[in-house]
């Protein structure tokens, strides 16, 4: 609890959002990482619920990219492959590929992002979700990082630069 309060007050001082929910893992990099999700090294997250997996980019990614002004998404009915690009986000001057952490069939695409691409910045894990997929391999999900591992990954990545 003390660590959470310290991080929260520091985040406030730095004007960085830091939601105080009990299931958050708070990292020294002050990006939000949610428990219960799985993460790829290319900074996408997966939320597996029943037969559907929801995919988006992490708070760490959106923070480093800057204001998202355009999102390129595939059509439902297509397929994604683990580690391959399925879309892109444009942030002012840059397009950045978004890669799928898992393979499967795209069953839904977040159409809100065409009119409100900034949802990826303001709500990367909820309203800013990008695609929903029917996974073709459960082992791919298991090979992804958990919240603690991803938090450490972000810290090490930021520290090495």
């Amino acid at each position: 609890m003390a660590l959470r309060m310290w991080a929260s007050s520091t985040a406030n001082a730095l004007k960085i959002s830091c939601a105080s929910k009990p299931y958050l893992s708070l990292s020294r990099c002050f990006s939000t990482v949610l428990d219960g999700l799985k993460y790829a090294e290319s900074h996408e997250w997966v939320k597996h619920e029943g037969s559907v997996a929801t995919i988006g980019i992490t708070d760490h990614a959106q923070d480093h990219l800057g204001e998202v002004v355009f999102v390129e998404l595939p059509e439902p009915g297509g397929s994604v492959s683990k580690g391959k690009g399925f879309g892109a986000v444009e942030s002012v001057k840059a397009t950045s590929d978004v890669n799928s952490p898992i393979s499967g069939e795209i069953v839904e695409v977040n159409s809100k992002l065409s009119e409100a691409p900034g949802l990826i910045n303001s709500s990367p894990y909820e309203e800013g979700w990008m695609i929903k997929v029917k996974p073709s391999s459960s082992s791919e999900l298991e090979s992804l990082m958990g919240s603690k591992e991803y938090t450490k990954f972000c810290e090490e990545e930021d520290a090495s630069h």
Partner: protein
Amino acid sequence: MGILCCVCFLQEEEKETRTWNSSSGSKMLIPQTRNIGLPIMNLMRFKGLPILQQLHIEEQLLRTSSENWCIINDGTNDPTIVMGVSGKPAELLEIESVLRDQVPVIRRFTGGGTVIVDPGTIFVTYICNKEAIPDLQPYPRPIMSWSSSLYSKVFQGIGDFHLRENDYVFGNHKFGGNAQSITKTKWIHHTSFLWDFDVRNMAYLKLPKRAPAYRSARGHLDFICRLKDYMSRSTFIDKTVEAAGTQFLLRSFELETIENCSETEFRPSTRFLTNEELEAAAVAGQ
């Protein structure tokens, strides 16, 4: 036959030019004073290459090559409008004038804004592996910052050069626009420099809705300036090559080598917009 795919570190202590022939064509090391342990970067130089062809080369190298590249195109042939990947013609262009005067319009694969390029534009592009530059995070702002540090060397003591938001400026006048694309393993940062421009061409571009704060709603001619007022073309290009040589071991590369060596059937997304598309955009207001 194929493009040399391995990134190798060479150690040289003397100014030296060597040539060798391989199955993929001929390459030439560029004389440099200090290049110990630097990553190799292939340097391609063009003069007047059509901008669509330049962008196709860049997009192919970004997507299919594992090497580092610097491309310099000293002017393009015909005046051409180049929009970013998400650009909306009706918002950015005076479509009626563009169609009337048959000005070509390209949608490129990188982000960023709209430019009209011509023989007075000098293009400099860096395509790098994510590990090529130590301590550089492969995100837009660090890459932008790194590029401005290179150009700070080029413009040292000349004008009041700096990176202002995402533009290269002298004072508060823009002379260089930037755009990027970042993939899983590589990134590209390309810049169009206004060495000179035709005032009449600016009339094809609307004032963009999304503009940097420092623009302060200035019209095109009050916002931009000409690099020719500060530096000759050859000096700028020579100094840019010299600056790149402080971080990379530059190796001159010929275009025909790329054309002969591509082993993938790559289809670039960069393309001309058709008259029909522009007309439809004008009608739909997009």
